[in-house]
C-alpha cells in the first residue's frame, strides 16, 4: 500500500482546484477520468502530477460525454472514480449522469461553475445550479453540495465520495471559477485521523466466481418497455431518495434565532458576502439574518422555512438570473413572504451591494 498523501493535520495555502485534487487523494479516490475545460483543468493537472505517486490512475478522454461514461464504468467496476467539469462540459455530462441516476451509480463530479449561457466566462458564476440539481432527462435524484471556500472544497469533496457510495446517488461538488482559482488558507487532514471512515466501494460487475455457475450474472439495466415497469423503478428510486434526504441535507444559519427585518438567502461563495453584510446591516439598525443551504439537492426545506418564518421579508442573492431563486420559491411554497432579489448572472456580489439592495428595498 502506498503511503498516505495527507498525514495528520496541516495548515496550507493553495488554490481551490489544488484543494480538490488533494481531497480526492485523501479520500482514497482510485481513478479520475476527465476532459480539459477551464476553470476545472487544474484539478486534472494536480491529479496527474500527484496520482502516480500514490498508485492512483487517470484517463484523459476524448470529450465530456466519454469522461462521464468512463467514470460510470470505473464506478461499476467497483472503484472510487470521479471526474470534474464545468459549463458546456457539464452540459455533456448530463447524459452519463442520467444513467447514473437511473442505475444508482455513485459517481462524484466536481464542478467549478463557469458563466453562461454558451462558452461565456470562466471566472465567477452560479449559473449551473439548475443543470447540476435537475439536469438530464431525469428527476433530479442527485446530491449537490454547494461550497463557499477552500475548507468546504476539501471537506465536501471527501464527503461526496462517502455520500455517493452510502446512498448510491450521483454526487456533485458545486464550486465556481472564483473558488477554483483563488488562494486561501485551509486545513488539510487525513480523514481517518478525524474519525471519518471512507465508505467501502463494491463492484457491480466483475464479481468473483463464474456467472451462471457460482452465482447469478449481474444484469444492469436502464431500459424498460412498459409504463408500469418504469413507474415502479422510478418510484423506488424516489422513495430511497426521500428517505435519505433528511440524513443528507446540510445548512448554515446566521442570526436567524430572533425576529428579522430581512432574511438573506444565498448559497456557495455568495454566502460569504451575505455573511459579510450582516454586521454592516446591524450598524444600519437593520435586523438581518442569513440562511445558507449547503446541499441544494436535497434542499433543507424545513430549516429554510423555519428561518423564513421569523423574517418580514426575504432577499435572494445569487450570481445567476434566478436559478437558486426557483429552488427557494419551491421550498417556501405557501408561505406568505415577500421575496426581493439581487440577481447578478455571472457577476460577483459584494457585502456592500447586498446592504445597498436591502436599504433601497425599505
Amino acid at each position, binding site marked *: 500500500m502506498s503511503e498516505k498523501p495527507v498525514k495528520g493535520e496541516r495548515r496550507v495555502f493553495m488554490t481551490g482546484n489544488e484543494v480538490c485534487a488533494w481531497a480526492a487523494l485523501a479520500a482514497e479516490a482510485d481513478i479520475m477520468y476527465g476532459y480539459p475545460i477551464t476553470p476545472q483543468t487544474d484539478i486534472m493537472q494536480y491529479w496527474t502530477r500527484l496520482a502516480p505517486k500514490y498508485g492512483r490512475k487517470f484517463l484523459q478522454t476524448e470529450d465530456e460525454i466519454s469522461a462521464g461514461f468512463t467514470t460510470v464504468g470505473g464506478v461499476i467496476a467497483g472503484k472510487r472514480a470521479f471526474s470534474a467539469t464545468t459549463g458546456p462540459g457539464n452540459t455533456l455530462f448530463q447524459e452519463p449522469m442520467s444513467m447514473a441516476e437511473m442505475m444508482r451509480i455513485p459517481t462524484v463530479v466536481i464542478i467549478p461553475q463557469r458563466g453562461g449561457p454558451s462558452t461565456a466566462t470562466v471566472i465567477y458564476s452560479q449559473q449551473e445550479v439548475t443543470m447540476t440539481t435537475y439536469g438530464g432527462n431525469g428527476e433530479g435524484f442527485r446530491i449537490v453540495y454547494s461550497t463557499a471556500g477552500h475548507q468546504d472544497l476539501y471537506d465536501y469533496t471527501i464527503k461526496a465520495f462517502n455520500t455517493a457510495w452510502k446512498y448510491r446517488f450521483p454526487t456533485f461538488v458545486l464550486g465556481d471559477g472564483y473558488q477554483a482559482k483563488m488562494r486561501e488558507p485551509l486545513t488539510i487532514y487525513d480523514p481517518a485521523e478525524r474519525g471519518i471512515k471512507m465508505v467501502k466501494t463494491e463492484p457491480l460487475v466483475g464479481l468473483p466466481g463464474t456467472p451462471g*455457475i457460482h452465482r447469478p450474472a*449481474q444484469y444492469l439495466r436502464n431500459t424498460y418497455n412498459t409504463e408500469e415497469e418504469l413507474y415502479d423503478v422510478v418510484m423506488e428510486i424516489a422513495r430511497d431518495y426521500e428517505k435519505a434526504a433528511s440524513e443528507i441535507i446540510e445548512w448554515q444559519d446566521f442570526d436567524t434565532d430572533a425576529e428579522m427585518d430581512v432574511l438573506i438567502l444565498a448559497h456557495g461563495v455568495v454566502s460569504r458576502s451575505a455573511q459579510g453584510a450582516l454586521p454592516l446591516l446591524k450598524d444600519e439598525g437593520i435586523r438581518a439574518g442569513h440562511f445558507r443551504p449547503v446541499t441544494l439537492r436535497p434542499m433543507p426545506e424545513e430549516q429554510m422555512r423555519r428561518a423564513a418564518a421569523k423574517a418580514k421579508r426575504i432577499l435572494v442573492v445569487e450570481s445567476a438570473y434566478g436559478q437558486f431563486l426557483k429552488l427557494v420559491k419551491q421550498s417556501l411554497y405557501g408561505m406568505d413572504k415577500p421575496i426581493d432579489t439581487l440577481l447578478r448572472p455571472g457577476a460577483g456580489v459584494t457585502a456592500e451591494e447586498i446592504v445597498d439592495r436591502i436599504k433601497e428595498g425599505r
Partner: protein
Amino acid sequence: MTREEIALAPNMPKCWNAETKPHKFCPGCGHGLALKMLGEAIDELGIQDKVVFGCDIGCSLLSWDFFNLDSVQTHHGRTTPVITGIKRARPEIIGIAYMGDGGGYAIGAQHLVNSATRNEKVTAILINNTNYGMTGGQMAPTTLPGQKTETTPYGRDPEETGYPTLGPEMVAAIAREGAYVARGSIANLRQLKKYLKKAIQNQIDGNGFSFVEVMSSCPTNWRTNAENTWNFVEKDMAEYFHVGEFKVPGQKEEK
C-alpha cells in the same frame, strides 16, 4: 434428459444464459449468429468468469441478458467508453463492447476513433446490418447507395448523405501496432469465430484495441424472405464491405 431430449437440445454455447432462450431477436436476424460465435469464442478461451459485457442501445440491447456474463446496458453510442472506464479501473477484466452500426459509426464514432487511437485494451464488436433496426429501419452510416430505408425513402443518395462507412478500414488506419481489426460475416461463421477469438485474445495479451465488424442481416426491416436476405448479405453487402483482417499485431502491413 432422455436421449431424444439430448439430441433435440440446441447446441448452445456454455456461457449463454439458457433461461433467456429462445432469444428475443427477430427470426432471421444475424445478431443471434454473431452472439453464438461470440459465445463459442468465450467458451473456447475459458474466460466466462472474467468478461464484462456491455451492450449499446438499438437491437444490440437485446443481448443484455443473453449470456451468463456480468452485463451492463449503456446509452446509445456509449458502450465503448463504459467498457473503457471499466477496463481502466480493473485491467484484469476482459471488456467487450457490443454495438450496432449507428452506435459505433454515428453517435459513438468519436469514442470508437479515440479508443482506437489510444489503443484501449478492450474489444469492440459492431453489427453492420445497413440500417437502424430497433427504431424501424432508418438510414445507418452503413446503408448502401440506393438502399431504401425509412429516412431514405427514395434510396440513399451518396451525394446527399455520403457513402457507407468503412469502419474496419478506418480503425485500421488510425490504430497503431498492437491493434487487431477485422470484418467478418454471418455468411462465414467459422471465419467470424476465428476473428472474434483473435480479437479477444488480443485483449488478453494486452496488445491493444480490438475491433470486429460483423456483416449481418435484418430481414424484418429489409422486408426480405430467406433467399433475398442471404443474397443481400452475400452479394449486395459483400460488394461494398470486404471481409478479412485489416490489422494483426506482429504482422507486417502490406503497403
